[in-house]
């Protein structure tokens, strides 16, 4: 990227990368909001089972994994800013592992729902709204995870240096956003919806 030609005289507090990332998050929020509204709207309207209260269990492990990964990614960014390579790599890979743990927990949950409980997206309105909302969230986790893994691999190869800290920071913003969406999904699906 070329250096911005802006700034003289009215330097803005935000870089264009920061503004762009925040706007992406705004659009994604608006996207998820519709799925959350859809979920809330259809709570208790399924004509046949299985119903949420019968089959859903609180995803404690998944939630712990994802929420703590927001901490590790901050550790990684701070370490990179301070040019501590070991701590940076440890933070990134811890984040990837925790994110992977979240996805694994989700996979196990879906396996139980599909195989044991017979809940498919086409079974009833609960299945329709559940798999759509949770699935889109998991897809976002997957994208974030791939990007974090890419940063990790490039870091091992020595391509990620201190001057890249701002960009890794932007990735961490996206990761925090995915985390916040999970808090909303958790509340709506596993607390309000059962």
């Amino acid at each position: 990227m070329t250096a911005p030609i802006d700034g003289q005289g009215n330097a803005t507090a935000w870089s264009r990368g920061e503004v762009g990332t925040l706007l992406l998050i705004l659009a994604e929020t608006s996207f998820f909001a519709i799925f959350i509204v859809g979920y809330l709207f259809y709570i208790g309207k399924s004509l046949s089972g299985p119903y949420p209260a019968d089959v859903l269990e609180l995803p404690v492990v998944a939630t712990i994994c994802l929420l703590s990964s927001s901490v590790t990614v901050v550790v990684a960014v701070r370490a990179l800013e301070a040019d501590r390579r070991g701590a940076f790599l440890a933070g990134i890979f811890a984040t990837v592992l925790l994110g992977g743990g979240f996805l694994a927990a989700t996979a196990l949950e879906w396996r139980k729902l599909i195989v044991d409980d017979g809940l498919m997206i086409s079974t009833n309105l609960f299945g329709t709204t559940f798999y759509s909302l949770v699935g889109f969230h998991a897809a976002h986790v997957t994208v974030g995870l791939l990007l974090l893994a890419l940063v990790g691999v490039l870091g091992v190869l020595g391509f990620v240096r201190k001057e890249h800290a701002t960009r890794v920071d932007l990735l961490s913003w996206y990761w925090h956003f995915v985390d916040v969406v999970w808090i909303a999904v958790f509340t709506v699906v596993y607390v309000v919806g059962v």
Partner: protein
Amino acid sequence: MASIPLADTEPRRRFRSDVLHDWVTTVDHKKLGILYIASGIVFFVIGGLEATAMRIQLAVPENDFVSPEVFNRLFTMHGTTMVFLVGMPIITGFGNYLIPLMIGARDMAFPRLNAWGFWMFLFGGLLLYFSYLGSTGLYGAGSAPDVGWFAYTPLAGKAFSRGNATDYWILGIVVSGFGSLSGAVNMIATALTMRCEGMSLGRMPLFVWMMVIVSFMILVALPPLTAAQVMLLFDRFLGAHFFDTQAGGDAVLWQHFFWFFGHPEVYILMIPGFAYASEIIPVFSRKVIFGYSVMVGATVAIGFVSLSVWAHHMFAVGMGRGLNIWFATATMIVGIPTGMKLFNWLATMYGGRIRFRVPMLFCTAFLAQFLVAGLTGIMLAAVPFDWQVTDSYFVVAHFHFVLIGGLVCTIFGAIYYWFPKMSGRMLDERLGRWHFWLFVIGFNVTFLTMHGQGLLGMPRRIYTYPADRGWEIWNLVTSLGVVLQIAGVLFFVYAVIKALRSGEPAGDDPWDAWTLEWSTSSPPPDYNFDEAPVVRSRRPLWDLKHPDDPDWKYE
């Protein structure tokens, strides 16, 4: 971008393949802006031909120019094309072209994202039109989409919409939407972070302000459409039940989701029209814009309020008294900031030395026509009146007054105004006047009349009608107006071709204007400005031209 200074020293290559390569691989905001506008104009012609076919069919009762099935495809493709493939790219194109120039920057914030957005838009549009060939699908049914531009469920569900036509409608819009989304991200990031020295937010041209507000509206309102379309796709392909009433789903939920996008979309299309008018009217009235900060505030107000009025499209659904009153009131409230803008433009013209060149003619017509659109809009916001004319040609007339009388007229004005900057050539004034008068008279013949058959009860979307309803003369006149509009557009096309071949050179600043884009050459060099400009007021060029009486003394 790094290689740009070399271009002046190299001998000029004139191979066609090189020119093509330049345009296909470009990340330059000016070329991408022109590509957006040019593709929008091509789709405008296609959408216009679809409308013409419908007007031929409806010109006389019991006509059989097209079959009912073809008619359904025509109005679906016409509406979808005009909103997503004409309005959206043209407003994104002008924003792309002008924002960096107006704020003294050398490109958009994310040039490659910009190029990606354009090509996503174009291929999304081509995907939609590919449905004419490819959508036969599994059931051997269908051709182009035929469920209307808002694709109401359950009609758009799998049971009633066989084949893949509706899937092309969904995917074409989702893919082309990425152009609008990336354009919106780019426009905001550019305006917020790349302004030249002295260009504070309070000195940004109103055009930039309004495009920033529109971009926020795109980011809030367009993803819900994508989400709803994904739900519909899940219903159609995975057997989900979002809008499936057989399984407890709610078809009206689709209407809520669609119009939560659909109403703000009207303002997403119209505010750029306000933006063009807010640049053109002051320059041709030789006065500064009246009420700069009120204009900004009114636009922000419109942005917020327009997010809470969507269900005025659904008064006939039976939402109940409370919701009807809420949405009727909110809708009428939008009229206040919009009315403030009309008064500001009039106050700008009042007492000015008005030069009625073609851009100003179009903007003046816009003021009158948009007033009519606003008045019928307030009529439609009154629930009992809406019940009488819902889904009739009165509604069709109303929103064509918004989108043609308002938006298309300001777009034509904007093209006449900025074409000299983009090409370095003037559009012929005499041809432009022919274009203006034929188009505006034709438009009013068609759409003023159309209120008539609407009040007489003619429903929209019928492919023909019996002769005994008293609608014949109205429909005939409506259709005849189309001839004048087409003649006007032909003058426009001829004027563009003539200007590109042998147009009179424009010079840097043909209109004696005040914003930064006119301070560089026409067309601007790839890097826009030799030196980053320094701004001290809202009219930097006025300050340059009148060092004895600069604006910054008074602002």
